[in-house]
């Protein structure tokens, strides 16, 4: 199957996935106690006011009708109007999307930059002190909550040493790299710990493989062996893991965007949930689902490039 046909097939298969996501999120938000009318009018509003707002928002219609409206409007690209932001959900999301995507991609790049070299050092020094040190440090990183790491980094690197700004997110690309370094590192530390462990054992496994021993025996320079044979083969499982941890990275933005005051989709999601802003929660969930699905697709495509034995089907 050619990659193009494969991509189309995968995109087609996303339709039932998305339908399920829509059903689940639609029901989930409505199962929460409280509703947008209460959140909107505030605790002080009278019951009659609340009822009037419910009617205006269409919440008094039967659930089936509400879901049909949600479904048909979404298919036409209309995610509805955010109650909280008083503007179209699509506009609000398009506004916040770039910053979250930037933060996520930045975190992925940083986790690879951190995990990659250290995994090699650990694997090549298996069982000796560098291996032990690296593994211990990452173990600690894994067991600390994200918001705590974030605050520690902010306190020392930003507030005390003034190496980085505490807040803001910059206007130009360079400024963004600088301003979003700490939030990205915070998210990246956790992911890199997972990737490092996986990559290290994958490298060790590959190093013991017969084809590597053969390459050595053949007298290939170590750099070539590591680059061409070891890294490429060790990366296969790491790419899968990285793809899977995109979900983690995205949910991590809920916390980091709040701690670092970055106005992205994660913080918006929190605000939307607290305000019971059904259209916004639904729109954000669909966007997150879309992003994750696309990442999974890219992961599979990339894997088939790395390992020709894997067929696209």
């Amino acid at each position: 199957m050619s990659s193009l046909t494969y991509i189309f097939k995968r995109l087609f298969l996303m339709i039932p996935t998305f339908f399920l996501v829509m059903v689940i999120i639609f029901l989930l938000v409505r199962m929460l106690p409280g509703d947008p009318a209460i959140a909107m009018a505030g605790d002080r509003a009278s019951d009659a006011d609340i009822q009037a707002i419910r009617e205006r928002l269409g919440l008094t219609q039967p659930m089936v009708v509400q879901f049909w409206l949600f479904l048909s409007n979404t298919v036409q690209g209309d995610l509805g109007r955010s109650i909280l932001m008083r503007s179209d959900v699509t506009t609000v999301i398009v506004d916040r999307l770039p910053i979250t995507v930037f933060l996520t991609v930045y975190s992925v790049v940083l986790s690879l930059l951190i995990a990659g070299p250290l995994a090699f050092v650990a694997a090549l020094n298996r069982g000796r002190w560098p291996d032990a040190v690296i593994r211990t440090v990452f173990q600690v990183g894994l067991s600390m909550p994200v918001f705590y790491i974030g605050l520690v980094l902010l306190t020392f690197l930003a507030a005390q040493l003034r190496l980085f700004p505490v807040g803001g997110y910059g206007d130009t690309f360079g400024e963004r790299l600088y301003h979003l370094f700490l939030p990205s590192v915070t998210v990246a530390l956790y992911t890199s710990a997972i990737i490092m462990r996986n990559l290290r054992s994958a490298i060790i496994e590959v190093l013991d493989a017969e084809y590597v021993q053969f390459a050595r025996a053949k007298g290939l320079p170590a750099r070539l062996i590591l680059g061409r044979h070891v890294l490429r083969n060790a990366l296969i499982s790491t790419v899968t893991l990285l793809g899977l941890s995109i979900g983690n990275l995205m949910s991590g933005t809920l916390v980091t965007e709040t701690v670092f005051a970055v106005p992205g989709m994660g913080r918006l999601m929190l605000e939307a949930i607290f305000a019971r802003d059904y259209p916004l929660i639904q729109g954000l969930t669909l966007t997150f689902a879309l992003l994750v699905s696309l990442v999974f697709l890219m992961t599979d495509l990339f894997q088939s490039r790395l390992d020709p034995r894997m067929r696209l089907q």
Partner: protein
Amino acid sequence: MLKTVLGMTIAATLSMPAMAQERGGTLNFARYDGSRLIDPIYADRNPDIWMVGSLFDTLLRGSADGNSVEPGLAESHAVSEDGKSVTLTLREGVLFADGSPMSGADVVFSLDRARNPDLSPWAGLLGSIDSVSADGNSVTIALSAPDPTLLSMLATFNTAIVSKAAFDAAAGATDQDKSAGIFAAKSAGVGSGPFYLCGFEQGASMDFCANENYWRMGADGKALPYLDGVHFEIVPDDATRILRLQAGEVDAAEFIPFSRVAELEADPNIKMQLYPSTRIIYSPINTREARADGSPNPLADARVRQALNYGTNKDALIGVVLHGAGQPMSSPLMAKATQYAADMDPLYAYDMDKAKALMSEAGVQPGTEVTLTTLAGSADDATIFAALQQMWAPLGINLVVEQVDGATRGAKNRSGEFDIHTYGWVNDVNDPSQVVGWLGYTPTAKAVGTGWENPEFNSLFEEAAKEMDPEARKAKFARMQEVYAEAAPLLFMYETPFAVAVGNAVDGYVQTPLGNNIFDEATVSR
């Protein structure tokens, strides 16, 4: 703070006779939450309400002590003999921020908007107004019945004056669309306050620029404000907000958690300000005979509620939750700073023996389970629960916790599905009727969801709403406070100040007891 005040006094004395007024510069202010729409009639969340006064003016202004009104856009006002009409004379030469003159037509437009129940959630507060008319600089408000709160209402954010011309010119089918359009366009024309909105990034930042046409004068005889502008950044996380101030990235950070106050007071680069507020922290108690699930409610007995109040060591709570930065409630219905607040201090002074006696009188079985509903993620609420659980254990109460988010708590308050839950209040209006209507008057909100109903209280409240004689009105509020304290539909807890930390460069910033952020006379020296 004392050190700073002394320092300022000495500096002021040394530089006598005339110190040049500090002017210019932009104040960078870190907020806990952002504004969404700053329009007098649509502002319904504190981050919106508290900024209205910076962009718009009201006809009258609250006095510094909060107990009377002073001239605002109206330089004088008179109430008719029968109390059924108020005449105001508008100040000459007031301009909106775009330079267009403010007139009687703007006042009629603004007040008609404000009292339209289809538009404003606050319209009920202006229910006594029959009509508003203008003749030149004279505005007449005709009332259907005398209204003792009307003058206070004319000094409240929702009656602030907007430009009719700006609204007429704005695109949009409905008033709400026009308002949102004006806000999004960041146009200077809509208000006559000390600033106008000149920058806005949803969820991130907001900018106010000085209104050069503002009518109030500063100490140097020139127009206020002293600042060129204010730049707001939204930093929802408490710790990050403080770090930004400490790193010098902002000049001020609001809503400092009380656990950090002492540390910031010790910081030589920071002035920790604790502004007196009308904020009270209390917990409604379900007074219904049966719980929502149908089981008998031990809290329906007033003696049990009194016992819980006596068994709560308020000073200890203030110690552990506020690190001392607060005081026990001294009126059962309002903060000390509210007009007509009765001083009942000590209100249910800690008395374990009395509490135990009341419990056994009421025949409460040891081990009785009571649920405290708290806000998930709130460190204050977690501490309150832990403290109350210990304090009430000797009374035979087995206190369990249920953690929910704000919207869930609101829904439970409405439906009565709770035993006791944490809550707070800040006055929006400089008059006790709003808070008393909320906490005690049954028709408004079932006495803050407690289900408490007292015919005497309700009729006193209705009479006070018409009573024009201040002394007689005060007496009615005094009796309401007595009745309420006795019935104890609440766990009466404490009042807290507004904690704002500012850099040493900042002076003159004020947060009023109602919470309004006032930058009119703020300065920043760079």
